[in-house]
């Protein structure tokens, strides 16, 4: 019966959030304008002419759909109000991750890896799995890709180990280990805001899928990279630790992170947005870094990545215009109703496919309003699909990969087939296992 309650709650939340968009009548001209605007945003994000940020295309595109009436100013305002808190939450998490790096958290991770895994490539892989999974879950996938990956690579090189398995582990886990918490991935933040789930409940439902997907990845990696993980006959030891400087345990950063995590659960339980907990954590570390003159206000503002936040806002408005004018109706029959196991599997598969066609962020924006009426279980199944699906190709989406190849910006690298083979081994298995785990969790905990 808890599932039914969850369903009711999800529907309630979404009827308010997306109801107006869904009621819009299909309109061919408006849909054409909206689809063209979305195509421009996606194309820009992949091609990135002159290296300009994606917001340069997304903000005018949103203005065009509003100006042409493809989405009413009222609906656009509602979308902006809905996305605003999510974007604020995201900004706080991005700044928090950057400040943790400033506190030496990732340098300490590298030193720990070097100290404990010298001469043992299999152990290094296991430890990289733990670090990448926890980093992704707590500080979001951006932190794993941008901050942890170079540290892991440097450590493997320093230990004279082949870097491939460890590097690929970071890449894969930045996606597949982003299931656990609402803060792990922007897709999760969007779903979390829309699902009506409390922070703790979200994490409780996703804990088993998170663990089983990581376990699946680990087993595949151990087999796939068996030759690269041969024990070393002679290897370099951990001399130098953290790049020559001894790295101590970053106690303050760890304490603030622990406090922030507890804050997420507490704020959410008492009905306050957990974004405030992220903001408080970031504020504590920012105050400390400013006092020690390790950072500047300008650097903090840059860490919040305003162009990215604007891009998310513009994309959200354009996607709502696209779904409201026909795409939503066209896709609705494809989204399985209910939270039975086959329905969850179908939802996750559709989400994974769509994430590969138009990238995961637009995919989750398109699918959320369609899945939400079926309940929190269906929303989480969408997340399973859009978070694991991008591992199929190494650019995170087939679309990006193909476009890049067409544009010859990014080569048909020799590693391409290797990475795709790894994706084919992990993604379908991961999807099925994660959905099975989610289904079990929904039955035990209740949606």
């Amino acid at each position: 019966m808890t599932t039914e309650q969850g369903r009711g709650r999800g529907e309630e939340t979404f009827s308010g959030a997306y109801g107006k968009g869904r009621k819009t009548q299909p309109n061919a001209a408006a849909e054409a304008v909206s689809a063209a605007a979305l195509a421009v945003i996606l194309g820009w994000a992949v091609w990135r002419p002159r290296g300009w940020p994606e917001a340069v295309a997304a903000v005018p595109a949103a203005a065009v759909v509003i100006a042409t009436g493809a989405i009413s100013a009222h609906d656009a305002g509602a979308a902006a109000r809905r996305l605003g808190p999510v974007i604020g939450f995201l900004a706080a998490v991005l700044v928090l991750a950057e400040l943790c790096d400033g506190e030496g958290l990732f340098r300490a991770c590298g030193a720990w890896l070097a100290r404990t895994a010298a001469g043992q490539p299999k152990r290094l892989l296991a430890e990289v799995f733990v670090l990448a999974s926890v980093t992704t879950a707590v500080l979001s996938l951006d932190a794993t890709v941008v901050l942890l990956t170079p540290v892991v690579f440097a450590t493997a090189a320093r230990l004279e180990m082949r870097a491939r398995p460890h590097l690929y582990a970071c890449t894969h886990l930045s996606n597949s280990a982003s299931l656990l918490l609402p803060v792990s991935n922007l897709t999760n933040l969007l779903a979390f805001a829309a699902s009506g789930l409390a922070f703790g409940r979200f994490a409780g439902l996703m804990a088993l899928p998170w663990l089983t997907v990581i376990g699946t990845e680990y087993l595949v990696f151990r087999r796939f990279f068996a030759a690269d993980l041969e024990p070393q006959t002679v290897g370099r030891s951990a001399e130098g630790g953290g790049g020559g400087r001894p790295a101590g345990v970053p106690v303050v950063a760890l304490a603030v992170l622990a406090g922030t995590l507890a804050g997420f659960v507490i704020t959410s339980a008492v009905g306050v947005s957990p974004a405030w907990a992220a903001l408080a954590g970031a504020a504590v570390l920012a105050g400390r870094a400013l006092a020690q003159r390790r950072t500047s206000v300008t650097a903090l503002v840059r860490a919040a990545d305003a162009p990215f936040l604007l891009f998310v806002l513009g994309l959200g408005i354009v996607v709502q215009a696209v779904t409201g004018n026909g795409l939503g109706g066209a896709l609705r029959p494809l989204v399985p109703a209910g939270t039975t196991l086959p329905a969850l599997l179908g939802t996750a598969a559709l989400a994974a496919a769509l994430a590969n066609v138009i990238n995961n962020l637009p995919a989750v924006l398109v699918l959320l309003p369609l899945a939400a009426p079926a309940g929190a279980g269906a929303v989480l199944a969408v997340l399973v699909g859009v978070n694991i699906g991008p591992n199929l190709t190494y650019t995170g989406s087939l679309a990006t990969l193909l476009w890049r190849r067409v544009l010859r910006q990014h080569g048909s690298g020799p590693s391409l087939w290797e990475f795709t083979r790894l994706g084919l081994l992990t993604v379908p298995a991961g999807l099925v296992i994660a959905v099975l785990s989610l289904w079990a969790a929904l039955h035990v905990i209740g949606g």
Partner: protein
Amino acid sequence: MTDTEGAVVVWITEGTWRGCVDAALRLAPPGDPVLLLYVTPAEFAETAHAAYLGLFGRGRPERDPGPRVAELAGVSAGELLTAAADRLGRPCQRVERRGLPEREVVTAAADAALLIVARDGDRSRLGPKSLGKAARFVVDHAPCPVLVVWPGTAPGVGTIPPPPRERPRERPHERPHERPHEGPHEGPHKPPHPPRPALYLTESVISLTQPCK
């Protein structure tokens, strides 16, 4: 530009390079040029860059981990080549290339007198798997003689499984009439092989390494 003509080219790879350098010390005649070659796989920086690309909408080139990984790989390559040169202890050329390792090695060794590579596969067992994909490619395609060495101690002859035709002897009562013919050197009393040297010379190398001696 590097001059590999007539040189002994030593392919340096993580964890296994010491065996190759030691082989060069034993086999390259004093005075002959030795070239230490390390290839940084381009896929490292590419993969890190692609992962950033996969983060949709984060178009800030200064946060892209690809260039940082490329830089770290360059530093690591330099350190590895320095360590290898120290172990060799005689004048040598150090070369770092970037790309697909097996292809870069084959290209770099085109005019070499000898190319020394280590087994890079699953070395816990003998046979084809002890050569990984890259070394397999190099052995198959290198235009020069190739010396394949075990990075550590070579497994003893006793670890070689019996040839398939001898296996029926384990079950002598089953279909004895199908037992294959045993040649004079394949019977149960064949003389033991001499201990396997730590270096394993491929057939082509044995004749072609003569100029080195």
